[in-house]
């Protein structure tokens, strides 16, 4: 037992036992962020806030939701939507939040790619971020099963079928995942468990890891400049705020984050109250019916690009392409051979590559939803899928030949 003096106040009492002052300094007031940033640097906090909204609304929904194929649809659409006070609000927040969180994730990812924030020293930031993307995808998919509408059922059917592995015909694996021959009660309850317990635990763990990976390499800045953080911090603490290249996380960086979050929540609640159909597909307001296949089965918008990489090829080739697409982005820090940490507009061909990637993913997203029976759409889908697959090797080649940008240039 260490020696403890009698504390003069609560803060001191806590500091003796938890080192709250040190924590506050290390995590807030002396956690240094580069000054040369724009609003895209606030997306991490926006994501954290959205995740918070999802957890909060999820807790309220969980109090009334019933994971049973006979009760699930009505517990959501009747109990929560018409009997529980503000149940509709929590559901709309949860539904819109689940969709919009992916928009922010994609903005966050493309920001990272544009500014080269995955390069040497920052690989783990990228990798843990990609792991979060996968965990969020699993969370979104499992959550989509829960209202047990037509789209829940048929999306569940299609996606679990992927595990048969094409010509491998591993139907035993598919049945093992479903707990039944077709999606049913066992299927619903296990996805319920995944959605409310296992995956959220994984996500929370990964968020902590993601924050942790930022600590040593520090957040990137608009020019990709290397900063001597200790020197800059000393300047700041000495009052030379203009000369210093850094700002403390709290309150300076936070004040900007909070402003961006405020603007973001205006958009968020506009969607919650006035434009929610994109996130809560009307088809899913028809109860699940295993005998009635909907005319069009499509995933939510954020899965469309990878769905479109699956669709235009044959059974096996499609699965392989799909597998590659899921993993390809993980390897970005290792495919990019360039020595430069710089924004794309200073990196020559890489800039072209970046915009091609962005446009290609948008084309894939659109084609993933448009009916493939139209030959033009089918052709566009195929071209964009091949383009996506080719972009990996192309990146490797163009960055091998990328010239080193001289310091100060």
């Amino acid at each position, binding site marked *: 037992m260490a020696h403890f003096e009698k504390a003069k106040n609560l803060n001191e009492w806590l500091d003796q036992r938890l080192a709250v002052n040190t924590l506050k300094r290390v995590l807030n007031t002396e956690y240094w962020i580069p*000054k040369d940033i*724009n*609003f*895209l640097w606030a997306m991490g906090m926006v994501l954290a806030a959205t995740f918070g909204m999802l957890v909060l609304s999820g807790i309220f929904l969980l109090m009334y939701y019933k994971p049973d194929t006979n009760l699930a649809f*009505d517990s959501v*659409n*009747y109990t929560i*939507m*018409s009997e529980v006070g503000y149940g*509709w*609000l929590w559901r*709309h927040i949860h539904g819109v939040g689940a969709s919009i969180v992916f*928009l922010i994730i994609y*903005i966050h990812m493309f920001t990272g790619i544009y500014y080269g924030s995955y390069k040497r020293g920052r690989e783990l930031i990228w990798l843990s971020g990609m792991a979060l993307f996968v965990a969020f995808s699993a969370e979104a998919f499992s959550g989509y099963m829960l209202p047990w509408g037509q789209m829940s059922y048929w999306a569940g059917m299609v996606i679990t079928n992927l595990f048969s592995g094409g010509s491998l015909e591993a139907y035993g694996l598919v049945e093992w995942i479903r707990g039944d021959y077709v999606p049913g009660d066992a299927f619903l309850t296990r996805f319920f468990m995944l959605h409310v317990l296992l995956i959220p635990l994984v996500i929370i763990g990964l968020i902590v890891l993601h924050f942790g990976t930022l600590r040593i390499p520090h957040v990137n800045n608009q020019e990709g400049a290397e900063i001597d953080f200790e020197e800059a911090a000393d300047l700041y603490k000495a009052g030379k*705020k*203009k000369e210093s290249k850094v*700002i403390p996380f709290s*309150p*300076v960086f936070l*004040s*900007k984050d*909070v*402003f961006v*979050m*405020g*603007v973001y*929540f*205006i958009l968020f*609640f*506009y969607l*919650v*109250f*006035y434009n929610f*159909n*994109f996130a809560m597909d*009307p*088809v899913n*307001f*028809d*109860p699940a019916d295993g005998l009635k296949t909907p*005319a*069009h089965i499509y995933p939510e*918008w954020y899965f*469309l690009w990878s769905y479109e990489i699956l669709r235009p090829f044959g059974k096996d080739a499609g699965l392989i392409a799909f597998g590659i697409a899921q993993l390809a982005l993980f390897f970005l820090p290792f495919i990019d051979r360039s020595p430069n940490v710089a924004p794309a507009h200073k990196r020559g061909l890489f800039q072209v590559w970046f915009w091609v990637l*962005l446009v290609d993913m*948008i084309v894939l*997203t*659109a084609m993933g*939803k*448009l*009916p493939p029976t*139209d030959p033009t*759409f089918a052709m566009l889908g195929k071209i964009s899928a091949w383009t996506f697959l080719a972009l990996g090797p192309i990146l490797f080649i163009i960055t091998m030949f990328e010239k080193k940008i001289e310091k100060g240039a």
Partner: protein
Amino acid sequence: MRELKILAVVVFFSLLTYYLVEPYAHHEMHKKVDAQGNEIKTESQGFKYNGTADIAEAERAGDAARVAAKKAFWADVAEVAKLEGNAAAGEAGFGLCLGCHNGANMNMGGVIPPNLDHAGTIYDKNYLIALIKDPAMASNVDHKYADTMMHPMGSIKSMMSDNQQIADVVAYILENKSGEITPKEAYMEACMRCHAVRYGKLTQLGETPVFKHEKDALAHKIKVIDEQDTVKAYMGKLPPDLSMIIRARSEHFMETFIENPQSQLAGTSMPRVGLNHEGYEKVKAYLTEVGDPSKAKREALGPIVIGFFTLFSILAFLWKKSQWRDLH
């Protein structure tokens, strides 16, 4: 300035993606084309019925005999519509209707004949004339009765064949069965014989009473199942429960489908209901009440929450300005 440029890029690509996967993709998915590949535009006719849509459908199917039959039928309807109906003279004719439309809740030939207490309020005049002349043609489900099956109301053709008599009965309905109607009553008269609404406790037999004893509740349930089986046998499948239909279908779909079910679901056994604009609005109001009860609360709360975050953003902006003042 640079931040605004970046914001413009982000907004542009987000909106582009939204446009492609939402309005554009949904338009492409639900597009209907004729045999020549031309797009068929389905627009609401304002809940007026003159057979234009029915004739166009027959023309697209390339069935000359059907086109002729439809044209002749709707021309007849227009003739009757021009006649001056005498409501007093129509009372006796309406008596014939009451033989079946008697509120006894008895299934006759497939469905329970609907209550006509507000028929003059919720149905269109042309449609009523057409219905008495030939129920299958009026409802645009004549394809169902081409062979041996007869429309359950088919006998009306022989009972009321005189044009003036039809005009009189319709005049009687429009004058005497035209009281105020609640949304729920409109639904019960127009839709309930086929479509249950479990969130509104309606079955094909009407409102489900509260039973004291489980035995009575079960006995009622059996009666409902019997009725549903009869409807199912007649319609081919049990028409869906409409509790959530207001969220499951778009406004445009609801309008055009109720006006002419064939326009959205070719070959369906659902008959045209013949609602006029007021009737449709009432039915829609009931379906909204049941399927989207939070609509009013949502619209009331929206501006407050958005106002809050606007104020929040303004204050946050001022805080940011004060924090960043000394930095540059």
